């Protein structure tokens, strides 16, 4: 029934990045709240905000830059919870390219994820005053696919990686950390909030929906707590839920370990300071900023307040 069923749209395929939700489902935390939760995995062509707009899901996970951009496009999504405290995004470069600082990016080729995930990078570059159109003293941007080959094949000097996934894959390919230089967005002061929980504004005005979200967030956070405390088991649960059967245990265990670092210090409620920093970063996007003015009503603490009571 409508009052108790929730459909969650992930922003990527089933992996430990979303362990909290799978654990909550698997351990019956949702059921305890009387919820009937369906988790929809994402993929390369799925824009979660679009699925939300089309009514295919009630809540989605999203990176805040992409969510705020959707808001400006006229799709009023609202952050109702923020399980991820810190950003796992970074650039990973070959050390032998001579890159040691941001200034060294000039003249280099850098792989970037697009699909709404390019905003943090573009903001960063514009703050650093580095053009991204491939000139002599700018960077050449490659739209990066879903793997780390551009780096391994040396088509790119740096690529985007997540601490919990792609970076590990570079290492798995036999590369030792000594050969690499990394730039974490967190360290560069351009971190933006990742993997928040978002719902549509209009739905949130409905008390039944609101109640549903409260229970959903509460159970999800319980799931995250459990996953953080039991990384191996959580990874196992993720593996059970991976219908492709192609994920490996070692990989998911490591990912879970790294994810645990990112959720550390979050009880699920949005830290306003983090939010402000994200907005400031995005507004600083130079000639073509991601958002043109500070958004209003893009988040609410109502849900987490009720959930964490």
């Amino acid at each position, binding site marked *: 029934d409508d009052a108790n069923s929730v459909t969650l749209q992930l922003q990527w395929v089933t992996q430990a990045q979303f362990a909290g939700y799978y654990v909550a489902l698997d351990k019956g935390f949702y059921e305890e709240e009387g919820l009937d939760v369906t988790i929809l995995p994402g993929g*390369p*062509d799925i*824009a979660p*905000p*679009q699925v939300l*707009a*089309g009514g295919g899901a009630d809540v989605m996970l999203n990176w805040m830059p*992409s969510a705020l*951009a*959707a808001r400006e*496009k*006229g*799709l009023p999504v609202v952050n109702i919870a923020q399980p991820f405290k810190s950003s796992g995004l970074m650039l990973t470069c070959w050390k032998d390219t001579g890159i040691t600082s941001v200034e060294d990016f000039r003249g280099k080729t850098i792989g970037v994820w*697009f*699909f*709404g*995930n*390019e905003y943090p990078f573009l903001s960063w570059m514009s703050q650093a005053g580095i053009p*991204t159109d491939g000139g002599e003293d700018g960077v*050449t*941007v*490659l*739209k*990066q*696919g*879903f*793997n780390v*080959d*551009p780096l391994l*094949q040396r*088509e790119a000097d740096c690529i985007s990686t997540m601490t919990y996934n792609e970076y590990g894959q570079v290492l798995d390919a036999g590369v030792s950390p000594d050969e690499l230089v990394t730039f974490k967005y967190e360290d560069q002061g351009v971190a933006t909030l990742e993997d928040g929980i978002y719902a549509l504004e209009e739905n949130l005005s409905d008390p039944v929906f609101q109640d549903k979200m409260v229970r959903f967030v509460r159970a999800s956070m319980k799931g995250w707590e459990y996953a953080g405390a039991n990384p191996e088991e959580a990874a196992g649960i993720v593996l059970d839920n991976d219908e492709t059967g192609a994920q490996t245990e070692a990989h998911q265990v490591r990912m879970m370990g790294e994810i645990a670092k990112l959720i550390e210090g979050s009880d699920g409620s949005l830290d306003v300071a983090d939010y402000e920093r994200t907005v400031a970063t995005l507004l600083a996007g130079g000639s073509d900023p991601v958002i043109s003015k500070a958004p209003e009503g893009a988040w609410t603490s109502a849900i987490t307040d009720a959930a964490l009571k």
Partner: protein
Amino acid sequence: MAYVLALIVWGFGWWLNIRLSHSPRADTRLFSLLIPIIFGLTIVVMWEILVQMLDISAVILPAPSAIAARFAVSTHLLWADFEQTILKGAMTGYVLGAIAAFAVAILADRSPFLTKGILPVGAFMAALPIVGTAPIFVRWLGSDWHSKAAVVGVMVFFPILVNTVAGLKDSTAMQRDLMRTYGAGYWTTLFKLRLPAAMPFVFNGLKIATTLALIGAIVAEFFGSPTVGMGFRISTSVGQLAMDMVWAEIIVAALAGSAFYGLIALMEKRVTFWHPSQR
């Protein structure tokens, strides 16, 4: 209400087209252009009506007017994407794929043994889904248009191959016997009889391949590209929920594809004027 209005528009458009297509001038070039345009316009108007009146979110389906507006202000961007994807990626791949298919068809045709050997392998290649081949070619040839051309080449290869092979067998027994009475050799028979007889089939393959070429070049960009190109723009814009831009690119693709197809169809008319389907 919206549906009723849309239906009325549809009815009117269809009525107009029935009138036009049965008019004595239906076969003139003007009418051949006008009729599909009216058909398209009917759909566009229905689309606009439905989007406006049912209040469909622009994030899901933008109104044609919004798409047109976006198109108008983005022509330079669209042109750059067109150049990258169609002119460099798709065309190169199409030409290379077609030449390769032609060469292999003629090779395969030299002996039943090779035909039997190559066709299944060709069918095998045709079924290599772009989702799998694109990342591999991007890995091998880099993110720029070269990998896109390779993807396109592989995609267009099979339809052209199959059709050419079938076409080369399409001459009648009597036509072949005539060549035999002349003691004509393989190449003479090929050039004087079998290639001309094969042309209706070859063009069939070339026509199917035009649309594949476009799809291939665009979709392959989803798996890695420079920051220009129609596929790049589409996937990026979907991520940004800029659906008007997505549709503007789709329109470019449709225009380019139709023009490309039209060009091949025109050549077909010129070359296979003698075939019953052209008379």
